[in-house]
Every structure is written in structure tokens, then in C-alpha cells.
């Protein structure tokens, strides 16, 4: 009912605005430049809205212990500092990180989705757009209400935000991030007199030695939803066409040779008990983390932050545990270049809910503008000076990691609030940024992990490549994505668990099944788009 009322109000207002615009246009035509006329058409809300606007902002709920994502000190602070100033009621809507698409689909179907629709990856955003979940954007309007944000992101929005001729997406900045890392048990390596592996062959030897020494396995979780598993097995450098056709974060390229190589190695590891032989039961991070922390497995891949509980938990279970950074090339077969996935030059991808009113949309732009202000973003990232952090001589915020009072930040430093404008904390120059990253990502005493990660990240920079971005909607991706993701799990686990001598025949049969389940349609449609040059 409320929604309908809002819709009717929005319609009436839109009609009124259109009438006013037509009237203004008639009066001013001929003597005002078009741009000024368009800008003049936007209502100035810098003194706040006359009647309160309720703006719904999505926020990832990562189930941090003791953290209420929609009601905490910082959400209240946002309301007090931003909402109250402009007469906006800022409502946060929790989106489960593990099943965000489900959440969004259900909210969209019931008309309860927040004003911003977001996702970290483009294919899913295109799928939302295909459902007509978003409204077309007026870029001048963004520039009008959010000039600072527009200065930062305008060019990116112009370049990447269009689909089928209309602008639908806007973005957050993405500074370089190298905190997605794999750590390895250094004390286990010492126990078997081995160094940190530098190739897949060496890595498998380490795992074999661990197994023989009865230390544990190499871990492993079920690969699902995001498919980056095959990067270490890719040839450098492949043609643009081949890359565009197969490399896709959202759909596993089951029939591609890198997948074949990946599965062959996995099959070897599985049959020799080098990895967790129940890896297909490890469907979330909690289980792999538990295995690492309890000393069942000796490697763990995660996004490290200065306040991560992983290391403390590990040490609680085994005070002698030591960890080291596992370089990219430890997973790469000898003679192959260590490739990784490059992100597109933007962080969070966002669109405006199709049902958001003009006022709600304006409020969103104002919110982005407010958050783009250095002070506001800094406060959200670091908290209260003297409590959560202290400033050092260079102006860097030094985290007080033991702080647990009222102003406590979430476990990922409140990122799920400020990710709308930027993906990582930023300072004036690279050196400061590096120092800030160390503070934000490295737990005390483990700075060497980030130092190693930094070195590894930039030494392999030239081999990072983002997925191709198609400028037309590949509708078969949205059509078959969920079925193929299910199929992938079933088939790749089957290949991994096949007896070694039967691997090739199992893989061959699985490829056929995967193609029939819709992958062939995707390949055909992508090939047609590639032939037409609709990608970059």
C-alpha cells in the first residue's frame, strides 16, 4: 500500500516535473545554452528536502559476530551527519553476502528492493538490467547533485556504464588491492625441511611430504559462483578472441584447456590425498577457515585485514604455528606464466532501482557526494581518533587493534558502507597508500605477509588481465548461468574424484553434458558478439 502510494506520488511528481520542464523550455528556448537549461531543471536540495525522503541503501551482511549491519554507531552517525541535515531518512537494507542475488531477486519481485541495486561483477548487473530492475540514468543529474563523485568517477561511468545505448550503471573507485592472499603453514614446511614452493610441482611435493609426515593436507573448498581457478593454467598470451570467448568470472569454461589442466591436477591431488578429500562439503569460508585454524589443512585463501580473527584462532590452537605468504607461482605449473584476474577499473557496480522516485534518486547522488568528501569517508574507514586509531607524524591512521568500545568498526573496517564510493582506503601518494594498506591489512607482527603480497602483486602485474566486457547483453549467460553453476559443481567434483586412469573419459563425458546444459549456446552467442566486434 505504502509502495503504491509512493508510486502514485512519484508518477504525479514526474508528471508535474515534466509539465514544469515543458513550460521552462518554452520560456527559455533560444536564449539559454542547452547545458545550463538542463542543469537549471534540477531542484536544489542543498538545504534539505521539504518533506522527508526515505532512502534505502543496501549493505552486505557478512555475519560478523556481534555486528548489526543495519543499526550500529556508524549507521546512526550517517543518519545524524547526512540524513538529518538533508531531511533524509537513511534506511540500511541487509543483503546476505553469500546469497545476495537471491536476496535481490526476492526483494525486486516483492517491490522491496533498496534504491541502489549493486553487485561486484558486471554479468550479474547485466542480468539485473535484463530483468528491467534499473532505470536509465541522466548523467547531468549525477554531475549536478554529486560534483565531487562525478569528478572522481565521471569518466569511468561514461566509458563503462552504458549498455545497449543507455546509461544504467555507476561505479565506485578501485584502488590497487593485494589483500586477497593465500597463506601457508611455515612451521609445517620447516618440519619437512622444505622451502616455500615456487611451482605447482613443488607445491604438490610439499603436500605429499606433509601427508607422509602426518601433518595435514592442502585444504581446498568447493569452487562455485566465481571462477578464477583456471588462471594458473592459462597460456600466456592467448588471443583476444579466445580470452573473450572463455574467460568469464560468472561461468566456468569447462571445455577450455586450462580447465582440463586444472581438473587433471585436482584429480591427482585428490587421488593421492594431498588435499581435503571432502572438499566438496566445504561450501563456505567458515569450513575452510575452521580446517586451517584447527590444523587440518596447511593453506588458506582469504581477504586479510588487520583485525582478522584467523591468526589469533590458529595460535590459540597451536601456539607454535607460523604462517607465510604463498606466492602466485606456487600454483602454476613449471614453465607457465603466473597469471591472475585483473579487476575492471572500478569497484562496486551500481544502478538505481527502477521504482526509485526522483527524490530518492537525488538523495542517492547526495549520499554519494557526501561520502566522497574526504573527512566523511575517512571517519567511516577509521572511526574515532584517539579511540579506534591515532594519527602518526605522516598523517596515517594507526589502528588501535584492541579497541572494542562503542565506536568499534566492523571486521572489515566498515567497508560495506563506504564501498559505494571506493574499494580501499586512499591517501595522497603511493608510499602513504602502501603504509595505510599495511595498517589496514596486516595484523600486528604480520606485516611481512602484506610486504610479500605487495611484491608478488606488482611483479606479476603485466600478466593480469580483466575479463572482456561485452557491449551487448549476452542473454544466454543470464538464461543458463544458474543451471551451469549447478552443473559445474556436480561435474567438476565427479572429474576430481574419478580414478586417475578414468579421468580423461569422465572429463570428456562431462564436457558434453556441460555443453548440452547451455554452455554451447553461450559460446555461440559470445562468438557472434566477438565476430561483430562488440567487446573490449
Amino acid at each position: 500500500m505504502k509502495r503504491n502510494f509512493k508510486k502514485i506520488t512519484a508518477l504525479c511528481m514526474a508528471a508535474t516535473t515534466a509539465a514544469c520542464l515543458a513550460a521552462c523550455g518554452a520560456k527559455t528556448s533560444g536564449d539559454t545554452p542547452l547545458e545550463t537549461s538542463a542543469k537549471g531543471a534540477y531542484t536544489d536540495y542543498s538545504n534539505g528536502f521539504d518533506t522527508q525522503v526515505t532512502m534505502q541503501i543496501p549493505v552486505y551482511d557478512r555475519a560478523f559476530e556481534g555486528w548489526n549491519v543495519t543499526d550500529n554507531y556508524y549507521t546512526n552517525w550517517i543518519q545524524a551527519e547526512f540524513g538529518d541535515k538533508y531531511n533524509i531518512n537513511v534506511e540500511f537494507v541487509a543483503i546476505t553476502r553469500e546469497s545476495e542475488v537471491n536476496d535481490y531477486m526476492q526483494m525486486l519481485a516483492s517491490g522491496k528492493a533498496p534504491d541502489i541495486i549493486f553487485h561486484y561483477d558486471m554479468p550479474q548487473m547485466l542480468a539485473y538490467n535484463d530483468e528491467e530492475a534499473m532505470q536509465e540514468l541522466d548523467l547531468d543529474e549525477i554531475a549536478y547533485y554529486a560534483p565531487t563523485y562525478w569528478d572522481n568517477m565521471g569518466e569511468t561511468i561514461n566509458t563503462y556504464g552504458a549498455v545497449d545505448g543507455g546509461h544504467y550503471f555507476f561505479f565506485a573507485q578501485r584502488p590497487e588491492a593485494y589483500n586477497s592472499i593465500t597463506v601457508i603453514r611455515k612451521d609445517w614446511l620447516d618440519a619437512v625441511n622444505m622451502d616455500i614452493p615456487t611451482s605447482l610441482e613443488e607445491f604438490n611435493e610439499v603436500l605429499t611430504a606433509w601427508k607422509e609426515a602426518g601433518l595435514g593436507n592442502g585444504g581446498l573448498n568447493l569452487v562455485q559462483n566465481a571462477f578464477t581457478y583456471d588462471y594458473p593454467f592459462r597460456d600466456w598470451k592467448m588471443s583476444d578472441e579466445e580470452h573473450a570467448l572463455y574467460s568469464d568470472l560468472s561461468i566456468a569454461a569447462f571445455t577450455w584447456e586450462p580447465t582440463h589442466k586444472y581438473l587433471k591436477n585436482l584429480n591427482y591431488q585428490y587421488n593421492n590425498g594431498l588435499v581435503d578429500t571432502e572438499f566438496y562439503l566445504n561450501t563456505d569460508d567458515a569450513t575452510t577457515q575452521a580446517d586451517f585454524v584447527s590444523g587440518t589443512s596447511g593453506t588458506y585463501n582469504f581477504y586479510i585485514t588487520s583485525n582478522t580473527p584467523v591468526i589469533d584462532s590458529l595460535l590459540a590452537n597451536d601456539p607454535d604455528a607460523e604462517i607465510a605468504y604463498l606466492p602466485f607461482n606456487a600454483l602454476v605449473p613449471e614453465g607457465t606464466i603466473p597469471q591472475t584476474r585483473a579487476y575492471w577499473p572500478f569497484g562496486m557496480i551500481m544502478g538505481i532501482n527502477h521504482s526509485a522516485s526522483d527524490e530518492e534518486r537525488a538523495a542517492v547522488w547526495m549520499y554519494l557526494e557526501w561520502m566522497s568528501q574526504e573527512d566523511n569517508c575517512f571517519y567511516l574507514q577509521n572511526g574515532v581518533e584517539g579511540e579506534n586509531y591515532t594519527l602518526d607524524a605522516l598523517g596515517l591512521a594507526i589502528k588501535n587493534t584492541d579497541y572494542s568500545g562503542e565506536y568499534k568498526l566492523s571486521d572489515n573496517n566498515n567497508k560495506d558502507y563506504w564501498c559505494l564510493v571506493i574499494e580501499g582506503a586512499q591517501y595522497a601518494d603511493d608510499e602513504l597508500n602502501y603504509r595505510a594498506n599495511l595498517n589496514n591489512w596486516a595484523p600486528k607482527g604480520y606485516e611481512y605477509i602484506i610486504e610479500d603480497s605487495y611484491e608478488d602483486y606488482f611483479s606479476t602485474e603485466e600478466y593480469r588481465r580483466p575479463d572482456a566486457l561485452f557491449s551487448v547483453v549476452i542473454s544466454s549467460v543470464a538464461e543458463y548461468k544458474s543451471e551451469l553453476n549447478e552443473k559445474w559443481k556436480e561435474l567438476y567434483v565427479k572429474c576430481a574424484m574419478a580414478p586417475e586412469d578414468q579421468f580423461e573419459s569422465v572429463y570428456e563425458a562431462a564436457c558434453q553434458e556441460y555443453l548440452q546444459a547451455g554452455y554451447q549456446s553461450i559460446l555461440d552467442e559470445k562468438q557472434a558478439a566477438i565476430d561483430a566486434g562488440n567487446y573490449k
Partner: protein
Amino acid sequence: MKSVKDKNMQPITDRNTYTYGKRSLSYNIRKRWQLYVLLLIPITFALIFKYGSMFGLVIAFKDYKIIKGFWDSNWVGLDVFRKIFSMKDFGLAVRNTLLLNGLTLILGFPMPIILALLLNEIKKKYFKKVTQTLLYLPHFLSFVIIGAIAYQIFGLNSGVINNLIENLGGIRIPFLQENSHWLVTYIFITVWQSMGWGTIIYLAAITGVNPELYEAATVDGANRFMRVIYVTLPCIKPTVVTLLIMNLGRIMSGSFESVYALRNVATTKFTTTIPVLIYQMGITGGKFSESTAIGLFQSVIALILVLTADWIAKKLGEEGLI
């Protein structure tokens, strides 16, 4: 049995009852309005949740877009059905649903009856109560919990039972991690979970058995076992048949949670069932038209099964359900 039944039907010809049955509805409502108000609660529930939601079935015939809604989405006739019938997983799902539910019915249906008969024979009151409570308990556990516990108990690498087996010198058994083992474990767990609760109706039916029949049987020289076979069982037969018909109606649907909580991606041979497919397509995949079409198909088959079972029951001389 026939004569007992006829005898029981006598009061219907009793004058008072007869005329009471003939009174007009409005008279009955005025006279016993409290009962009708009580009746309103389940009727409202059924109207809202069972009939009210039925109009959503139109999306099985539409290219449903969540933004356009039920009415504004485009009609596509039977396209959605053609699509799902041509899906490879659809046939598999129908087979698995029938297989899992068929096996659960065959093995699970007699269990509550046997249990109820056994419980009825227990004379120690407290022992009986404690046993009953313990048997009912699993019914109140969510399958999410049962699934998690099942992997702790039956897991291959770290399950309690496998640890025990290995310590006793045996070989680990993939109870939940190999297709045919999974099937057996699944049936075992679902039967265990539901059998206790299922006894309630039979115990109630047994309470209604005329004690004189037992006395007569005892006089005729029947021992306890014979009394169960020749008195108790025939007396609760109508209840058994009614429940059988109702269970047959569920053979096409079955429980989503039980399969979903116990499945894993390594054992998918029997776990792709209709409810799981609906979940994957509708909730995970956002293909609401397809999942509604599968749901509709499932309901139609279930209805046919119920009507057939009812018809057969009536042919066999039972009262049936409808």
C-alpha cells in the same frame, strides 16, 4: 467387520440425529455459531494460503519478469512447459522423486503402525511415556540440524561411526558420500525422523477399539499376537487406508528440506528431485515461470494419484477420502 460397521451406522436413523442433519444451515450457524467461528480459522488459512496463492500459477504460462509482475508479463502459452519437459534434469527429477518417496513410503509407512502396535502393548505407563517422547523428538528437529548432525555421525573422514569402524579394524563406509549408500542412509534417516510422530494417529485409532472385542478374542483363545493381528489391525484399517491415500498424494512432492539438507555435490544421482529442482530454478536461478510450471505439473500428478488411490480404496470396500 461388516456387521460391526452396520451396527455402528444405526444411530443415523435415530430420529433426533436425522432431523438435526436436515436442519437448514442458517439454523445450525445460529445455534452453534461458536463452532462455526472456530471453523473459520482453518477455512481462512486455506483460502489465503492454498487458494489465494493459486492465481500466481498464471506465470507458468507467461514470460514472467519480476518487474512487470504477474499481470503485465507477456503470455507465452505452453512454451514454458515445452522447455521444462525437454530439460534433461526434469526426467531425472521425476524419477528421483518417485524413487525416494516410493521407497520412503514402502519402508516408512508400516513403521508407525508397527511402532503403535508395540507401544500399545507396553503396560508400564512411565516406560511407555518416555519411549513415546523419545520417538516424537526427531520430528521437532529441523532437517537443517539433522543434516548437520548426520554428516558429523556418518561423514567419511571424520564421522563418529566411521571412526569407530576404523578403530575396530574395518574400512570406512561412505554413508553419505557415494550414491547408493546415500540412498540407504537417506531412507534410514527420514524413516527414523518421522516414524515416532506417525504413531500418534494410530494410537488414537487403537484407543477407539472396543475392549469387548479383545475380551471376546481372549475367550476364544487368542494370544497377544493374535489379538493384534485379528482385532487391533482390522479395527484401525480405515485409518491406515486414509493415511495411505494421503501419503500417496505426497509421493510426487516429498520433502525438500530432507533431500537438500542431506545432499552434497558428490552424490547427485538421486538428489535431483522435483522440490530441489524448483528451488534451484526459482530461488537460486530466478526462473520463476519454469519453477511454477514444474510445481503445477507436480500438483496435477499428485492430484491424479490421490484420486486414483481413493478410487481404488473405494473399490476395495473402504470409505475413501473424498
